[in-house]
C-alpha cells in the first residue's frame, strides 16, 4: 500500500520543520515571520503535493516553496507597509546576553552572516549551512549559477574581513 502524495509530503514535512523555520529566520530576521513562513510553506506544499517527484529531495523542494513565499508575499507586504527590508538593527536577533552564555564566536558568525545583503545571505545559508550545490541553490533562488558564484565570492571576501562590513556590530541586551 503506497501513501498518497499528500500523506507522504505531510509526513516528510514533519522532519524538516526546524530547518524551514531557521531558513525563514535567516530570510526575515523575525521569529514570528519565520513561523508564518513555515505555516504558509506547509499549506503550499500540501496543496501541491502531487507536483512533488518521489525520489527527489523533499527538503530542497520545501526550501524553494518557502523562498518563493517569502519573495511573493511577505516581502511585498512589508514594502506595501513602507517598512522596506529588515535593516541591520532589526536583523540582529541573536542577542548578546544569551550569546555570552552560549558561544560568542557562534553568535558572531550569525551576526556577520545576518549583516550581509539579503541576496548574499540567503545564498551563503543555502550553500554553506544547508549544503546545497550551486545548481540546487540556483534553482531554489531562481537565479543563474554564475550569480550564485558571484554572491558567494562577495560574501566570502566580506566575511574574511569583518571590518570591511560596516553593518556588523555587537549588540547586547
Amino acid at each position, binding site marked *: 500500500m503506497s501513501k498518497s502524495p499528500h500523506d507522504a509530503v505531510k509526513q516528510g514535512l514533519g522532519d524538516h520543520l526546524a530547518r524551514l523555520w531557521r531558513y525563514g529566520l535567516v530570510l526575515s530576521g523575525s521569529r514570528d515571520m519565520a513561523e508564518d513562513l513555515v505555516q504558509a510553506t506547509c499549506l503550499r506544499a500540501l496543496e501541491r503535493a502531487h507536483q512533488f517527484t518521489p525520489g527527489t529531495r523533499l527538503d530542497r523542494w520545501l526550501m524553494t516553496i518557502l523562498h518563493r513565499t517569502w519573495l511573493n508575499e511577505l516581502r511585498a*507586504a512589508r514594502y506595501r507597509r513602507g517598512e522596506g527590508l529588515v535593516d541591520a538593527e532589526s536583523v540582529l536577533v541573536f542577542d548578546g546576553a544569551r550569546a555570552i552564555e552560549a558561544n560568542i564566536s557562534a*553568535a558572531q558568525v550569525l551576526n556577520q552572516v545576518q549583516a550581509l545583503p539579503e541576496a548574499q545571505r540567503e545564498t551563503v545559508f543555502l550553500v554553506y549551512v544547508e549544503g546545497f550545490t550551486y545548481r540546487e541553490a540556483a534553482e531554489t533562488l531562481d537565479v543563474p549559477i554564475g550569480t550564485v558564484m558571484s554572491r558567494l565570492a562577495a560574501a566570502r571576501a566580506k566575511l574574511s574581513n569583518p571590518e570591511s562590513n560596516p553593518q556588523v556590530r555587537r549588540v547586547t541586551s
Partner: protein
Amino acid sequence: MSTPETPLPIDVELTGYLDGELDADARHALEARLAADASLRARRDRLAAGRPDAAAFDRLLDDAPHDRLAALLAAAEPRPQPARRTANPLLAIAAALVLIVAGVAAGFGIARFALPPEVQVVHGPPASWREAVAEYLALYTDETLAIIPDDPDLRRTELAAAGERLAIALTPDSVALPGMTLKRTELLDFRGLPLAQIAYLSPEAGPVAFCIIANGKPDAPLAFEERDGFNVGFWTVGGIGYMVIGKIPQPRLEMLATSLESRV
C-alpha cells in the same frame, strides 16, 4: 560600503575552486597558477577563511519553536479546490477582485493577449491574519456598515456566539468604543483558526474593526503598525490575538486599544 558588491573575477573562480564546483579543466588550470603565485595562494587562503562555520547555525535549530511548528503542520490542510474555494469569504473576495481587475483590464483593451496562468491564479493566502483582516476591511465603505440596522439583541447574540467559539466573554459593554456604533460581529476562519471581526462605524474614521483570533501565539504587548492605509494596534494574551484597525490617528487608536485590552 567599502566592499564592492561585485566581486573580483578571480575571487569568483577561487570560490568555485574552494567549493569544489569547478570542472576538472578549470581546476587543473587554477591549481597550476596557484602553485606558481604566492599572492594568489594568499587570496585563496583569505577567501577560505570567509566560509562561515555551519555549526554556528545549529543552535538556531535548537531555538526553533518545535511544538508550535508541529501544531501548525498538524492544522495545515490545503485549501479546497476552486469549486469549494468560495466557502472562505476572504478567498472569495480575492477571487472576485482578480476577476474585476481582469475584467477592467480587458474593458480598456489592455489585455490584448491571454493573461498568463500565473495572473489568473488567486494569489496565495495572506501572510498573516492581520494582513487578511486589513485586506478584508479595505473593501468596506461607510455604506457597508450604515445599511445594517441597529439591533441591540442581535448584536448581543452575535457577540455571544463569537465569544463562545473563541472561549472568551464578549458583550456589547466589553467591546463598546466611545463615539462609534457597534454594527456587526462576524465569525470568520483564518487557516482553520476562528477569527471574530467586530465592526464599528465611526463618523470621523469610517469603518473600524476589533478582531480576535485564537491562534495560540505567545503573549505580546500592544504594538502598532500600518497596513494597507490603516493604523493597527495589536497584542496577544493567553493564546488569543487581538487587533484594532481603522483609519484612526495613532494616539486615539492607542487609547481605544488600551481600553479594549483592559476589558476583554
